[in-house]
């Protein structure tokens, strides 16, 4: 069964460093998302992306964050200068535009620890 894959599964980085989290969405999907989950808290929406541009972003998604689809398969989340409070699990997700197009499929997540 097709699935969303994310790399790395875990990353530890120093405060102030840049981090890139990578995602390969399901191949025929057109809409892409990033969510995050701080330990013990709820899953929060960060950004949605379609047709090579951001569709919607949350207040969390400030200028330190950016997303990109550099080629036909990858979808990346970049945090330019990480802060301690960026420590969280980051989930990539994708969905199709067909009859089941409102069902979103998530990857296994990337654990980011900022020290």
């Amino acid at each position: 069964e097709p699935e969303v894959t994310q790399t790395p599964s875990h990353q530890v980085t120093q405060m102030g460093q840049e981090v890139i989290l990578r995602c390969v969405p399901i191949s025929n999907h057109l809409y892409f998302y990033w969510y995050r989950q701080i330990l013990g808290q709820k899953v929060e929406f960060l950004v949605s992306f379609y047709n090579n541009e951001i569709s919607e972003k949350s207040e969390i998604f400030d200028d330190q964050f950016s997303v990109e689809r550099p080629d036909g398969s990858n979808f990346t989340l970049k945090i330019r200068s990480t802060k301690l409070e960026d420590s969280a699990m980051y989930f990539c997700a994708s969905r199709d535009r067909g009859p089941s197009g409102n069902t979103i499929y998530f990857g296994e997540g990337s654990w980011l620890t900022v020290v």
Partner: protein
Amino acid sequence: AQSVTQLDSHVSVSEGTPVLLRCNYSSSYSPSLFWYVQHPNKGLQLLLKYTSAATLVKGINGFEAEFKKSETSFHLTKPSAHMSDAAEYFCVVSRRTSGTYKYIFGTGTRLKVLA
């Protein structure tokens, strides 16, 4: 605005007994509703979804949920709990916005299954 409330942060059941995880939603129009499961250190897996077809929805691993518009509820049930069901469960409502969908998560219910 759409929102979802999971009434119990923790639920404990004995193996072999029924499971009930409660979810109430608010939506200004007919919603799409989902249940996702997150096993420890794993991603978010789709259990089942409601998208205005049958009100009783069957999912994977013996789970089902019933959409009750009069009660604005979408409770998740399973007749007999198994040890492998121990996980965190999220109720999610989707909202269409600016040509795309946004997914709003409940705070999650952690299910513990006792031997």
